[in-house]
């Protein structure tokens, strides 16, 4: 009887382990995310953990917005755009121009409508500027070197230098402080009666960033899953020749995706400018590192992988930044190295590189 029980137990255990292994292998992004969220519980109290998690989500979602364009251009056209960081800087400067110089009164008024209007104007302007520069960039810098990775790397690095120098010429070489709109300053403090996480404080701006980031992710998933353009993009990632054979103008699709990617980089940059509250022309270069880690983590070319990768990077940055600030950057790269050892193609690979 007891022997039977033992085998039953073993079977239950084996079944559980099997399911766990399945989960780990088939949903590595969720597995890692759960791991990332649970482990810090042992090192900090829950209120701090909650604050850090929301902040990490905010940072991750902003990173996602910046990185999604780069991963899409790679997935669809196999173009490695190392000049992406320059578009982030450009978006930050354009957005800051609207907030600081053109609509300062609206942003500082404190009324909901005016703040929203100013923010919307800043984001739209940032996207328009970097999107239209993306058009020129695709046309004159990237198009001649389709299909040649080495030249793409060289040319886009050169293009990034030029854009960065242009930013210096237009906005001057010094840093520009970017104050947040009045409504988004300060923090939301949870009531101390809330169990476990009572008293945790979350900055308003980060909450807003999380909401906006989720919105962008939602819209993007909807476009890619449900619309004609999305089908074409997914088909293009699988095989560009086939899409061309079906009679679609693949060049137009490339151009559209490149512009959208640049515009998203600009949007991310504008959001980041208010998050950091100070901008320099070199901010894009620094952010590029996180962006690159994100797209490698996610699996080059995958939007969903990019989303989870960005959140992982955001979370580990905040957790390690709290526990041992010196090692924040190293931990980010360490995460990438570890995941590459485990899964050389990234979390959710879509293309064979």
């Amino acid at each position, binding site marked *: 009887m007891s022997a039977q029980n033992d085998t039953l137990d073993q079977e239950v255990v084996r079944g559980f382990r099997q399911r766990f292994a399945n989960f780990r292998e088939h949903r590595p992004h969720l597995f890692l995310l759960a791991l990332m969220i649970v482990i810090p519980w042992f090192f900090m109290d829950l209120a701090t953990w909650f604050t850090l998690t929301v902040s990490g989500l905010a940072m991750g979602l902003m990173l996602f917005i910046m990185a999604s364009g780069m991963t899409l251009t790679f997935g669809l056209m196999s173009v*490695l755009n190392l000049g992406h960081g320059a578009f982030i800087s450009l978006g930050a400067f354009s957005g800051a121009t609207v907030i600081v110089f053109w609509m300062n009164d609206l942003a500082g008024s404190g009324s909901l409508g005016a703040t929203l209007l100013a923010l919307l104007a800043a984001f739209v302007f940032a996207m328009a500027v970097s999107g239209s520069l993306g058009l020129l960039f695709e046309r004159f*810098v990237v198009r*001649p*070197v389709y299909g040649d*990775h*080495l*030249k793409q*790397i*060289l*040319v886009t*690095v*050169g*293009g990034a*230098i*030029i854009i960065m*120098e*242009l930013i*210096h*010429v*237009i906005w001057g*070489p010094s840093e520009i402080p970017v104050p947040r709109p009045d409504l988004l300053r300060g923090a939301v403090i949870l009531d101390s009666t809330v169990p476990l996480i009572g008293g945790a404080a979350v900055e308003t701006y980060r909450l807003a960033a999380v909401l906006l980031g989720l919105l962008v992710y939602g819209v993007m998933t909807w476009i890619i899953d449900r619309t004609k353009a999305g089908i074409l993009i997914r088909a293009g990632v699988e095989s560009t020749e086939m899409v061309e054979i079906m009679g679609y103008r693949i060049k137009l699709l490339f151009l559209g995706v490149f512009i959208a990617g640049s515009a998203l980089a600009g949007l991310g940059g504008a959001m980041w400018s208010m998050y950091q509250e100070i901008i320099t022309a070199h901010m894009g*270069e620094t952010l*590029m*590192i996180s962006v*690159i*880690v994100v*797209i*490698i983590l996610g699996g080059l070319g995958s939007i969903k992988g990019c989303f989870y990768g960005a959140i992982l990077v955001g979370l580990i940055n905040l957790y390690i930044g709290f526990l041992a*600030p*010196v*090692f*924040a*950057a*190293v931990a*980010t*790269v*360490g995460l*990438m*190295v570890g995941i*590459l*050892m485990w899964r*050389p*193609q990234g979390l959710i690979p879509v293309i064979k*590189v």
Partner: protein
Amino acid sequence: MLNAILSGDHPRSRILSALLLVIFICLALGPFLFSSTRAFTTLGMICIFIVVVASYDVMLGYTHIVSFAHTMFFGIGAYAVAMTIGAMGNSFGAIGLGILAAVLAATALALLLGLLSLRVKAIFFALVTLAVAFAFMTMVNQLYTITGGEDGLRVRVPRELGPAFRLIENDLYGFSITTFLAGLFTQPWNLGEVIRESVYNVRVNGRVVMYYICFFFSLGMFLFMLRMMNSPFGRVLQAIRENEFRAEALGYRTVYYRTATVVLAAVVTALAGVLFALFNRYVNPENTLDFELMVFILLMCVIGGMGTMYGAVIGATLFLLAENYLQDVLRVLGGYVDGVPLVSGLVGPERWLFWFGLLFVLSVYFFPKGMVGQLRVWADARRRRREESG
């Protein structure tokens, strides 16, 4: 004789040979041809960066491995020697230990990088090295107790390499080319006066000794890498560049060859970093590890000509001259367009990088083989024309 020294890889273009000869003479007689301190520093940097760019070319040009961690290895060398000297005092023993530490650290890191990211496909290597190099720079910035953080470290070189030491008691004579040329153009009628003015005294102190260490190191390393690239090993690298699949089918373990290339380049750069620390006598993240420096190395390599060792010489010389003197030219030009809003901003002396970026993109499109490659193409065309006409 010459054939053996150059490993049978000649410049193959008259203009190129002439350029290389001029550069060689200027570097060999450097302290005796240019009297200013600024020129002296520039010449030393050219010697060091020829090695850095040539070792980068071994990866980029000969094997098509794009690495963004080259400055990391350069910084490892520079910081290793700065830190051992800081800990043990300014003796040659400390320098030796620094060199040993630099070589070991560079080898270990390069092996790690190679094994990690050459496992996955080639394009990952660029991205992974970029991220790792950035993490390394952040570490150096953060661990300021041992690296000095953003302030960096001052390197107290041994007395024999400093300005107080005299190798030869008497001064030697130098002949200032710049003064001579300036005089030749402004007052060619009294040539004797010009020549007399151009002669100046050179104190053969420890700085000059250090310069010549750099020069001979640079020459030796350059010839070594030239030999290496024209050996069977180098041929395999070029085969991998042209068609990796085929090279593997012929029985070469391409992963080993690539890793060996990365390690070789890393060690050579680390040695160059050691010399940089000793020559510059000051090390900080900005002058050894910055991403901008990495881009500069890339620019030097591509503008000079990828896949040709001579391209490193031409590229490094041209770029460092531009970095130091193009600003002066732009300042003069800026005087003419003063007041025109956007243009004057673009021509200002701080904007030299803009012009170099533009030159870089254009050269990738129109002269993908760089200056050396283009000169060779022209020379070949000329030779063919002459053969056709008899």
